[in-house]
């Protein structure tokens, strides 16, 4: 007697035989350009596990690298901080050089636009200690033609006058110094009055009669009456006006940045210098040499 095969055994045999033949087919058949079918199937079956494995490996490596393998991070952090400090310093130096370049370009333009006016460009190399607005020292002196009582300006406006000139250096008394000042006049009304330093950043215009009308914001220029500055060099702007008797008390904001001078221009003569932009804005009369007529009843600009 032959035993009847169980249904499960025959089913398993069927599955095995079919699978064997399917694999055999896959080994023979090529699917387009993707190679043999068995390879396509193998890649399809394996690739999800490969992707999963790669993903898991990346995660493990990331966790290890970010949370455990940190022995070199402190040193690297210190190196990066040092490098960062160096870069900040470099940036600061470059910004300073760029600003210096801008200033020098401005001076050069000013110089080129006033070729007929004898002038010397100088660099501020120091300041004397002691007073609130100490004299500053320039890197140019007598060898460059600089003498006492020559005007010192910037493209923005009046700075001061030369009080001492040495062979290679010179000292400048700033307008803001208590001893400093210049003959000045209001652009709109042409009222003349000396502007003096106060030892503070702001200047003072002291001899404008109480009955005159002076408004904040008015421009003030040199009058040329001090025989130092040519006429119409900007001095500053009226900051505020206080009524006084017999004179108003007028505070003036300097046109030139007296607290941060780096390069200046020394005028070697009193020939007029035309500050076009300010003249155009204020509608001031064009510079006309030193033939200024002081307003009647007003103190003439004194020679500081």
């Amino acid at each position, binding site marked *: *007697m*032959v035993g*009847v*095969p169980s*249904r499960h*055994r*025959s*089913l398993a*045999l*069927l599955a095995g*035989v*079919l699978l064997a*033949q*399917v694999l*055999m*087919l*896959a080994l*023979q*058949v090529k*699917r*387009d350009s993707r190679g043999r*079918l068995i390879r396509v199937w193998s890649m399809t079956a394996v690739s999800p596990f490969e992707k999963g494995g790669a993903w898991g490996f990346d995660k493990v490596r990331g966790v290890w690298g970010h949370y455990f393998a940190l022995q070199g991070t402190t040193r690297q952090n210190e190196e990066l901080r040092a490098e960062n400090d160096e870069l900040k310093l470099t940036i600061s130096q470059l910004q300073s050089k760029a600003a210096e370049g801008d200033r020098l370009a401005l001076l050069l333009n000013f110089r080129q636009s006033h070729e007929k006016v004898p002038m010397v460009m100088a660099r501020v190399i120091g300041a004397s200690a002691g007073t609130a607005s100490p004299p500053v020292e320039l890197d140019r002196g007598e060898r460059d033609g600089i003498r006492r009582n020559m005007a010192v300006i910037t493209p923005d406006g009046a700075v001061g006058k030369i009080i001492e000139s040495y062979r290679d250096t010179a000292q400048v008394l700033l307008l803001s110094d208590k001893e400093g000042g210049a003959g000045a006049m209001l652009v709109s009304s042409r009222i003349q009055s000396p502007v003096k330093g106060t030892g503070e950043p702001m200047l003072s215009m002291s001899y404008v009669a109480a009955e005159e009308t002076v408004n904040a914001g008015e421009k003030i220029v040199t009058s040329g009456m001090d025989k130092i500055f040519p006429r119409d060099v900007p001095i500053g702007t009226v900051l505020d006006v206080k009524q006084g008797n017999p004179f108003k008390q007028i505070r003036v904001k300097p046109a030139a940045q007296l607290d941060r001078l780096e390069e200046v221009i020394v005028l070697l003569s009193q020939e007029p210098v035309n500050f076009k932009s300010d003249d155009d804005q204020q509608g001031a009369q064009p510079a006309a040499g030193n033939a200024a007529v002081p307003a009647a009843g007003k103190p003439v600009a004194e020679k500081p």
Partner: protein
Amino acid sequence: MNDTFELRGGESHIEVHKFFPGAVVGMAVLSLVLQRILPVYLPRLEILDLPLLATIYFGLSRRNPSTGLLLGTMMGLMQDSLSGPTVPFGEYGIAKTVIGYLASSIGSRLDTEHPLARFALVGLFYVVHQASLTVVRRLLLNQPEGWFNMHLAIAALVNAVLGVVLFVGLDRLRR
């Protein structure tokens, strides 16, 4: 294998038939040879599938699923090998393995001696065989293959008629 035994299907008794030695192998080889020779001389006979008829007959008669599916496998693989390089190994093998298993499984449960039963089963198995081939060709071989057409119906009918006649002759090989 030479013993005769009976399967109990419900209340009826179904006999497992035995054949003369070499009859199964001889008929299998003969069917394969005729399948190659006949269409050469009579192209219209290409519609016949003699290896399939042999697989169905011996599956229904032996009524052992394992034996039936192995016989179908061997018949199919032989047919694949004789069909030229364009037919990969396994194409007919898979289809006839399925038929061998189904025929022997059904044969162990039903009385398949009646001509009408044989006609219906051969027609059905022919369709299943073609469906298996279509699945293999579409899914594994990436070949465009229709699921059903009139040629399939006519071929199923012709093979079913031939099967009824042929099976009567093959019954004489039983011991």
